């Protein structure tokens, strides 16, 4: 019986062109796409940010995306590594590549087209047809576009952290600005890229209609009372009109298959 299975496996092998069965994933969007493609069973490890869906959390955790350990990666005996553009450090990625384990870097582009492209790249790396998932996600993006067309654009500001009252907000080339655009809002902050600490005067100048934040526990989050008592924020139309939205971080900023839903939820919250 066992021989029959082995024989069958040998015969089947050439058909499935060298499908890798021990995949390590580094990047939350990539693990979500892998799961949405129904390939969770092939994963053997993940980075710290990959926590959705919940079954992935049981996998060995390789630590922070940008500080992966070479021996840690190799210890999982992977035959394929799916890595986000941010995964590193470069020394680790070079060492791993020198063992001839394929490392596939997936591009990061914070647009609807970027998400569809990522799904294609992950599907190709895993030798799975990405078309059904792409079509499904594209349909959600189309529905989102319709919802977006029904409203005039708002000016929104994304607050990453607020330690000690010092606001760190999102500029251009960020996942946060990407999701604001998808939800039909403009970034009220212009003129810098990445996440930066900004001054109180810049906040009053920006005068956002909406504030968007990640919902989390600990000292990073700003409660409504904190917003009211923050000199600069309390002057913004957003706080005055109570348009403050908090959403779960990896859902909001992941740029994976759940992104159209996240953007739609954000859009509805803005126009509630």
């Amino acid at each position: 019986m066992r021989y029959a299975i082995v024989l069958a496996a040998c015969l089947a092998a050439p058909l499935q062109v060298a499908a890798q069965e021990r995949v390590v994933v580094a990047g939350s969007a990539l693990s979500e796409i892998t799961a949405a493609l129904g390939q969770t069973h092939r994963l053997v490890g993940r980075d710290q940010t990959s926590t959705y869906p919940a079954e992935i959390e049981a996998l060995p955790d390789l630590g922070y995306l940008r500080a992966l350990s070479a021996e840690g990666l190799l210890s999982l005996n992977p035959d394929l590594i799916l890595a986000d553009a941010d995964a590193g450090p470069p020394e680790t990625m070079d060492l791993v590549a020198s063992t001839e384990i394929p490392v596939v870097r997936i591009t990061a582009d914070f647009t609807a087209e970027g998400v569809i492209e990522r799904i294609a790249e992950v599907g190709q790396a895993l030798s799975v047809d990405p078309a059904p998932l792409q079509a499904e996600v594209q349909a959600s993006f189309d529905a989102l576009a319709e919802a977006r067309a029904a409203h005039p654009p708002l000016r929104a500001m994304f607050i990453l952290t607020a330690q000690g009252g010092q606001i760190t907000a999102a500029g251009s080339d960020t996942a946060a600005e990407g999701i604001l655009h998808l939800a039909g809002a403009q970034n009220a902050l212009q003129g810098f890229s990445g996440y930066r600490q900004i001054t109180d005067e810049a906040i009053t100048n920006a005068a956002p209609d909406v504030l968007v934040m990640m919902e989390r526990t600990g000292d990073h989050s700003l409660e409504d009372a904190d917003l009211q008592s923050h000199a600069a924020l309390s002057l913004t139309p957003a706080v005055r009109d109570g348009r403050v939205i908090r959403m779960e971080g990896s859902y909001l900023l992941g740029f994976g298959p759940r992104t159209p839903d996240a953007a739609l939820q954000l859009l509805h919250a803005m126009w509630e």
Partner: protein
Amino acid sequence: MIAAFLPRPLAASGDRSRPAQLLLLALLVLLLLTSAVSLAVGAADVSPLNVLGAWLSGEEISIRERVILFDIRLPRMLTGLVIGAALAVSGAVLQGLFRNPLADPGLVGISAGAGLGAVSAIVLGSALPATIAAAAGFYLVPIAAFLGGWVTVLCLYRIATRAGQTSVATMLLAGIALAALASAGTGVLVTLADDAQLRDLTFWGLGSLAGASWVKLLSAAPIMLAGLACAPLLTRALNALALGEAAAMHLGISVQRIKALAILSVAASVGAAVAISGGIGFVGIVVPHLLRLAIGPDHRFLLPASALLGATLLLAADIAARTIVAPAELPIGIITALVGGPVFLWILLRKRGLVDV
């Protein structure tokens, strides 16, 4: 009866060379054992003995085993060894030179200067002309750290030297001022940094041997070894300096030359160490203190023993850093501070008056 109250003969309490020689031997054995464990242990299940056996019997070694053993664990073990020795000896030399038990590479501004160099490279590196950035590659941060440490020490030395005489007290105080300046510069750069750069800064600041590679080791180890090689030249002079500068001069020590040699060798060792591993604290201060408790202040034994124990402790801390949360890693600075802090407090409590000298 009365004899018990008389001071014991100097020979009995002062000559500790036999126990010191035994301790050196014991430390050497301990270091060899730790090195072996460091090669044998890790996140991946690869045994050096099996690989050696396979190699001897002519079997083929898999690429994975070869990379883990020879490109990850071996350079990392050697890097830990050299850095641990360099940091501990630097601490012992500075404490002898300044005749101050608190002297540490962190205090005289070397680490802060090297830190400023590294942070500058991380934050401003992207603004460099593409040709320079491409040529420097991964090594931009280490090179900048090394230069930062050296420039700080050269400034320190210039400030403290007047009419050919270097004032040790001025050097210590100016070191604190330069460290504050360097930290201020680092602070300015941190506010300029974006989120991704901030994450890099945090990981770099806590120190790690994770980036160890042959290229880094071969570029930094000769500098650290040169620094370490100066130590034997310093032992007699540092012993004499314990009596005071004037007494040392009367004993025929060229005090000015010794100061220059000591501070420059320390700057080379620490600059190179910070350059490849980030800021690893506490090794330079805890190791010499522990050893003085055991073998006394004689630098002939203190310096080699510091090298051996420093290397052993750093290797042990690294083994912990890369196995506790495997397959992820902890920054090694967390481990050395977690172990070093309490040990240092214990030394203080055991030996009150240590800082009141």
